[in-house]
């Protein structure tokens, strides 16, 4: 779901909730016999339906299986370390390989599946891909001792920024890497 749709759903839902509370608050100023008890069952059923429908619509859209049936066009190894990402088409397993990969220019193909193999040499980091218009399109965590595999297909050309999204220390805000999709 795009972020703008999520925000819209949230604000609409919040308005409905606030509206119900405001209406009930207004009725409290005119005491009279009456009960909303008969509505309880319907509200419960409504909530169950809401949860059921949303779960059915969303549960199968897990990012873990993105493009699982396709062979990735490129594999990019990503190693995170306070406070820089090293990206390379070759595995990075040593400090020397990490240092050599820092600042390498990476170009990725447009419209093809790319697999990022993301890990960390020190603490937990986040590896979030920001599109050229500044929106997150995908992300995965970088965890020491583990390799997280993220598959993504870039449909928009331009310069992307990989930004650390897991707080990792004093220079966390500046932990970025850039690559070009064309």
């Amino acid at each position: 779901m795009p972020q703008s749709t999520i925000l819209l759903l949230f604000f609409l839902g919040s308005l409905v909730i606030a509206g119900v509370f405001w209406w009930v608050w207004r009725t409290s100023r005119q005491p009279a016999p009456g009960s909303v008890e008969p509505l309880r069952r319907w509200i419960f059923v409504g909530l169950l339906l809401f949860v059921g429908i949303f779960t059915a619509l969303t549960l199968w859209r897990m990012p873990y299986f993105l493009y699982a049936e396709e062979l990735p066009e490129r594999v990019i190894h990503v190693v995170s370390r306070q406070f820089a990402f090293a990206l390379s088409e070759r595995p990075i397993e040593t400090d020397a390989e990490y240092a050599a990969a820092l600042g390498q220019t990476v170009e990725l193909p447009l419209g093809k599946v790319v697999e990022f193999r993301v890990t960390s040499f020190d603490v937990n980091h986040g590896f979030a891909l920001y599109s050229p218009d500044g929106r997150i399109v995908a992300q995965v965590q970088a965890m020491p001792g583990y390799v997280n595999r993220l598959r993504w297909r870039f449909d928009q050309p331009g310069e992307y920024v990989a930004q650390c999204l897991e707080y990792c220390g004093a220079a966390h805000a500046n932990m970025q890497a850039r690559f070009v999709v064309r």
Partner: protein
Amino acid sequence: MKALDRITAAWIITVTLVFPIAILLGILMRLNQANVLELSPLTFYSFMTAHGLLMVGIWFVMSMAGVSYLLQRYVEVRVWPITFGYVLTLVGVVLLLAAIFGGGFHTGWYFLYPLPFYARTEEWATMAFLLSLGSLGVGWFVWSLGLLVAILRKYPLTRALAWHHLVGKSEPETPPFILISTTTLLGLVPAFVAAVILLGLFFMEYLGGVKQDALLMKNLTFYFGHTLVNEMLYFGIAALYELFPALAGKPPYRTKPFVALAWNLVLVVVWTAYFHHLYMDFVQPTVLQYVGQLASWIAPIPAIAVTAFSVLGTVYRSGIKWWLAPTFFFTGVMFWIIGGLGAILDAIVANNFVLHNTLWVPAHFHTYNLLGNVLFSLGFITWFVREQSGDDGSRLYRPVATLYLLGGAGFVAAFYIAGALSIMRRVDKYPELVANGGVWALVGALFAILVLVAVAIYTVHVVRRCWRVLAAA
């Protein structure tokens, strides 16, 4: 019981004095992000660590203090576990502040492994921080056990959990307050066990150099942290169940079968919802990610269906006299649900893929904490002050309620919008990538200042009256 009055007054004074300081830290952070201030990164992240830990800590203990006080209506409450919790909390907070401001410890409130071994300027800071957590953990665990034992002395476990109500029996009645307090206290036990294991593993690495598994540590951290915050909210709900009907001039709530079912479900579901914190760790077994989404979506049903509906039904055509205490409870429930909506939208894995660690996260947890859980505790505090002093704070009603609610709503709205714009959380300065982050930080800070003014006024009112309770001893 005078001793219980005094320890409750002591908790209230402590919490309401720390609260504005913690808010101020948050405002300074937002002003720094807005480029109005220039804090060093270390100062910013120290403030961030202190802000998070203080907020979670003070509102956890305040919600516990509220339940401890109200529990005397049903069972004999011993004061020593509460006092023990108070003393160890003070020790823990002193150690914590020493670690943060003396040792440059700046890991953020959830100290994700192995960051405590990196984000510090003095090596001893990690030890001071771990000892601080140990002190807080032991104090709170003993206090929780004290309350649980007090309940179980009078109510056998199955009766405290209202299982006989599940099968349709209405006698002997388990009061909802006992049911909710019991499920909440039981829910805390495994969280404390997880914390003990977590601390033990941290100590093994600190003292013995034994490297730990980052995925296991992350699971333990979030199991403990998520459960603690959730249970804190339920303590607040317990106080609401106990006090709100009387405030509205209605008879007490009864434990009906669906109420018993709801809170027994909450007890179980709360243990598995924390998986949503690890959605972006693709190496976590995928089945747990499914469990995380399902549990996160199921968890609010019993709470909303029962609590919100009960509160709305109580207020409907009631003629209730609105003053600070019922207003805090009523609006607290409303924002709790709104925050819950923000949370469950984020708990969809496909949405979390683009929202994780953006400002959407502080948006929803500030909604159900600052505007939910905190309001439940403020409702209790306001009621307690009236019980002790006869003053219901009617002069404060309009300014405090208006400033707090308006300020709080504007403050969290700025977070939601910024989160949807992919602006990240936990950065001292926004990179060029999200240059408009500063604008939303300034909007948030300005609204938060309204909250701070309301809290300052309220704190003076509360502290003066609670001080008299202490002085009367």
